């Protein structure tokens, strides 16, 4: 057993200083955190993009109140921090779904979350997509619908599905998505959507007078920016739905640029859609049409000038003919042409 | 024991010296670059290769050889080959146009495979020898012959193809490629955006004139391998990837080497008409006894394609060369003179 030895004062003071150094080392390690910064990339947790969308707010005229209100009016749930994304960083928020919006040339997204302070599980997420042009908002809105929803009075067109509300207004496409199928959450989603809609700017509606008005299901206007129906280079296609909302027929029209291009587009279309069906020629209203009839439904297409137009999923051959006849009449005034943009 | 000043200084000095060395070494290491940055690629400087234009001269000339050894040997006589070479180049302005006194001449034949000359997969050794002696006769200080073969080792290829021997006899030297000495060369960005590519650049770095001597061969993938594809032999790295886009790569290779204003030669003494580029049977080879010299790669290759019985319009890299202005595909319009020696 070692004998107890006397510890000199020098030794004690050295010992105390060493302990002090140890404490300083501990503090230094803590300081290192500030010197070095966080051990992660900000984008991982904060998920905000460095570039804000290019003055989207400045471009839109009007719009007094902030479309992302600080809290849901009348309900009181407060807003989280606003996240902003551009077309390039959209994937950080919605991962592979960004392609659906990129197909319509999305410009940016603003996102915020509204949580019920009294109930952790109740929240509503607000997505405001700036599609750049009202037509693109029409397109993306239509692409996310099944077509049989009942429209409600909101924005230019919108509908509610359980606790989520989807609408478009001008160039914006908005989703408010509730976390639970709970009436309280549904009401909050609805109120939030209405508040967002009232502060988004009004922009002229895309004209759809070149598609027949008779029998058109209200709010069913749609638009495809590129490669419609899986056909390469069939761009800038307008469409709308007709007849029974549960089994609607579709009428579409697009300006292909020249008569020759419309002709070749017609040939491609008929080859594509006519596979396995009965194809007949018919003259309707003085225009040569190709009718495509199969067991599930009928359709047809024609080229008139530089316009390619047609009908899909009509209940039978006669219905297809009727809709085609109406379509031939309505496209006579011309279908909007695709703007030639740089690098498009 | 009391510590005297000397011991004290000695020990502190020793510790201090080690400390200083450590600190110094550490700071030096700390400040050194981390060796991970990519080095700047080499760029071929056209100014080094001053071959004069000769607008009055044809861009392509054909020389035929008449004499064939009695007894049916397939090769034309070495003397005849020498005269064919001289005649073809003569039509272009003579070897003096392409080689001047004290030039360092780089000759790039095809020594891609370890095959004997009669298989037709490599440039005829006598044709190589002819141009080596022509260059030497014109006063070249050094004639370097090089290639980076597909078969390994390189020495075996040069030996079996008879080129090592021929070059030595004619007074030139062979430069064997070493992969560890390859350098990245900036690609010209013609129709493809190739990154800087590892190349056997050393001999080219010293050369002031370049002569490319390609055999006329059928090629399974690109149709024919002639003067434009001949330069492939100077490239290294993962060059087997070129086959993913062979025609555009061949075009850009020819574009790259056009900066050296090369004298292009097609060795049509024997041509490989099928099963190229490696051949294997004597029935794949046809004797033609021609040497074609020129400065227009597209025209030369179009002529070579015709020799193989192929339509130049159907060869991708020729269409690319025509479209980009690299050369003239309709070789007939250039009215190449044809001489027989």
């Amino acid at each position, binding site marked *: 057993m070692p004998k107890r030895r006397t510890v000199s004062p020098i030794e004690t003071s050295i010992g105390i200083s060493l302990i002090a150094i140890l404490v300083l080392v501990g503090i230094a390690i803590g300081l290192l955190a500030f010197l070095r910064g966080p*051990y992660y990339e900000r984008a991982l947790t904060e998920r905000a993009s460095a570039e804000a969308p290019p003055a989207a707010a400045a471009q839109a005229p009007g719009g007094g109140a902030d479309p992302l209100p600080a809290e849901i009016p009348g309900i009181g749930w407060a807003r989280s921090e606003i996240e902003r994304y551009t077309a390039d960083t959209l994937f950080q928020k919605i991962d592979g779904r960004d392609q659906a919006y990129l197909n319509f040339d999305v410009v940016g997204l603003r996102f915020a979350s509204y949580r019920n302070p009294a109930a952790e599980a109740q929240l509503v997420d607000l997505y405001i997509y700036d599609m750049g042009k009202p037509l693109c908002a029409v397109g993306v809105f239509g692409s996310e619908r099944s077509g049989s929803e009942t429209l409600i009075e909101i924005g230019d067109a919108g509908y509610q599905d359980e606790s989520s509300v989807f609408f478009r207004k001008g160039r914006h496409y908005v989703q408010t998505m509730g976390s639970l199928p709970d009436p309280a959450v549904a009401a909050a989603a609805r109120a939030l959507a209405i508040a967002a809609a009232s502060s988004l700017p009004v922009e002229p509606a895309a004209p759809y007078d070149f598609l027949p008005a008779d029998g058109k299901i209200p709010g069913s206007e749609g638009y495809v920016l590129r490669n419609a129906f899986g056909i390469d280079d069939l761009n800038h296609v307008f469409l709308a739905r007709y007849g029974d909302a549960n089994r609607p027929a579709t009428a579409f029209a697009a300006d292909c640029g020249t008569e020759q291009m419309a002709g070749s587009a017609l040939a491609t279309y008929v080859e594509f859609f006519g596979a396995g069906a009965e194809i007949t020629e018919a003259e309707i209203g003085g225009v040569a049409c190709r009718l495509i009839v199969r067991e599930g439904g009928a359709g047809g297409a024609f080229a008139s000038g530089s316009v390619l137009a047609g009908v899909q999923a009509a209940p039978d051959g006669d219905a297809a003919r009727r809709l085609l006849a109406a379509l031939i009449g309505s496209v006579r005034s011309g279908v909007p042409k695709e703007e030639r943009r740089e690098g498009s | 024991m009391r510590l005297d000043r000397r011991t004290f200084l000695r020990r502190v000095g020793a510790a201090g010296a080690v400390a200083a060395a450590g600190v110094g070494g550490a700071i030096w290491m700390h400040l050194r670059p981390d060796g991970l940055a990519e080095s700047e690629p080499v760029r071929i400087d056209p100014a080094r290769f001053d071959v004069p234009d000769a607008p009055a001269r044809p861009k392509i000339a054909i020389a035929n050889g008449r004499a064939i050894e009695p007894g049916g040997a397939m090769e034309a006589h070495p003397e005849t080959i020498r005269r064919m070479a001289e005649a073809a180049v003569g039509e272009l302005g003579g070897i003096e146009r392409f080689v001047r006194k004290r030039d360092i001449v780089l000759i790039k034949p095809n020594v891609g495979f370890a095959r004997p000359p009669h298989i037709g997969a490599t440039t005829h050794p006598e044709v190589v020898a002819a141009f080596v002696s022509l260059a030497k006769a014109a006063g070249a200080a050094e004639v370097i012959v090089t290639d980076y073969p597909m078969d390994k080792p390189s020495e075996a290829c040069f030996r079996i193809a008879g080129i090592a021997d021929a070059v030595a006899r004619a007074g030139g030297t062979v430069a064997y490629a070493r992969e560890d000495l390859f350098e990245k060369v900036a690609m010209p960005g013609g129709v493809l955006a190739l*990154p800087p590519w590892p190349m056997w650049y050393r001999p080219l770095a010293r050369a002031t004139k370049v002569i490319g001597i390609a055999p006329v061969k059928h090629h399974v993938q690109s149709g024919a391998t002639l003067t434009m594809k001949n330069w492939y032999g100077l490239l290294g790295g993962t060059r087997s990837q070129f086959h993913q886009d062979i025609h555009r790569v061949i075009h850009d290779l020819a574009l790259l080497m056009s900066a050296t204003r090369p004298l292009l030669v097609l060795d049509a003494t024997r041509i490989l008409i099928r099963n190229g580029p490696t051949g294997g049977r004597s029935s794949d080879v046809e004797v033609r006894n021609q040497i074609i010299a020129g400065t227009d790669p597209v025209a030369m290759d179009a002529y070579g394609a015709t020799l193989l019985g192929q339509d130049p319009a159907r060869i991708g890299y020729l269409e690319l060369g025509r479209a980009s202005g690299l050369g003239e595909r309709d070789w007939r319009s250039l009215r190449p003179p044809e001489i027989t020696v």
Partner: protein
Amino acid sequence: MSIRTVRIIWQVAFFALFAWLAIATAAESLGTLPVSGSLFLEFDPLVAIGTSLSARHLYHVGLFGLLWALLVFLATLVLGRAFCNWVCPYGATHQFIGWLTRRRRPRERMDANRYRSSFAMKYIVLAAFLVAAFLGSLQIGLLDPLCLFHRSVTTAFLPAAGLRDAATRFYLGGWVIGGLLFALLAANALVPRFFCRMLCPLGALLGLLSRFSLYRIHRDPDRCTDCGLCASRCEGACDPHGKLRKSECLVCFNCIDDCPHGALAYRFLPPSTGEVPWPEVNGRRTFLGIAAGLAFAPLARISGRSTRAFHAEAIRPPGSVEELEFLERCIKCGQCMRVCPTNTLQPAGLEAGIEGIWTPVHVMRIGACQVHCTLCGQVCPTGAIQRITIAEKTKVKIGTAFFDHGRCLPWAMDTPCTVCWEACPVSPKAIFTNEVTVTGRDGKPVILQRPQVDPTLCNGCGACEHACVVPDQRAIRVTAAGETRSQGEVEASRNRSLLLGR
């Protein structure tokens, strides 16, 4: 309070720091962790000197990086091997086990703490390692105490003990690493501080530096009665009762407390009783060590496993430098494996050749590489994995996925499945499908989506392989072909690119 008590406090404090960092350096601590377990490694002079020799560079991101090792270097020049007994957490663990298994009788204890000439082995090990490093093969991580301890705790101890997030982690070959740790710790029962005295290359390095250290244990011959009690708890077996072996003394200060006559002190003076400044190493054995180092590096390269004959499964983490440079930098510390959120990084067996044992490779079957994660590069202390931003990572490919048509359900078994396509995280997806209709075995038509890889888009993340329903050898597997880190290599044998110009 004696100085020995202070030493114990320091040991406990640093061990606690190490333990906290080891457990807390996990992906889930994002944003709250100020430093990572790599902190200790940055102060390790052997890591600094080793990587300086092999990579000719002292890695740092920001101000200092491995330059911190200078602190320990300079401290050793003043104090001797104080690091070994005051800071080193591995040493503290050995000491603790040695204390638990200590001999009861003082005579036996004194005998156990005698210097043995076999303790010179660590200098030979150091020589071999440094020579091999100079020739481009960094193997110090095998036995460096901090690398070894970090790696063993990460891949063996924490998962085996089931602590926090490590409870659900797997590490291939972890049993070997853990077994080595166990054996070395258990050896303390036979020879106290077995590893520190016999094998530790860092201890050897600091021992060599101690030659110049200003302070050492001084024995006053007038007070000393040659009782030998100072050796009863001597940690370094440095013969304080005889000629002090400076290179072995671990500055534990146990001897000062144990001396009943107060004959020992820590002084600036060399003892009049003499000291042994340099370690006693047999010249012949040193030569063998150097020869082993000289032979190792070139022999290891012969297999070609780090160049042309690279193993398909040697997939390196994103941000890694090219393979031969990687082997010059990786210290096998296992920090990247610790922090990887998906547990995909595993210690290699022989996939990367014998030099690459215990370096990190991806095993996609266990986890895929998350697209928006760059944690491995952030904790790597030597830059074997560079620190890259997430934006830079989008341009990095670690390999390419290849289908095995004999195992894929839609290709070989007429069974619909598109899990790989769904799992592919890049946009546009690197997996696309072609729809075909085949006639099934029962004569009915089966519509199949047959998946294919687009190599221009695939970055080798392994989400497909990880998601593949074929549970054993997956029907889609990632290999290192097409990785971007070796794209720029001039020599074809070092270039693993797949597509032209990419």
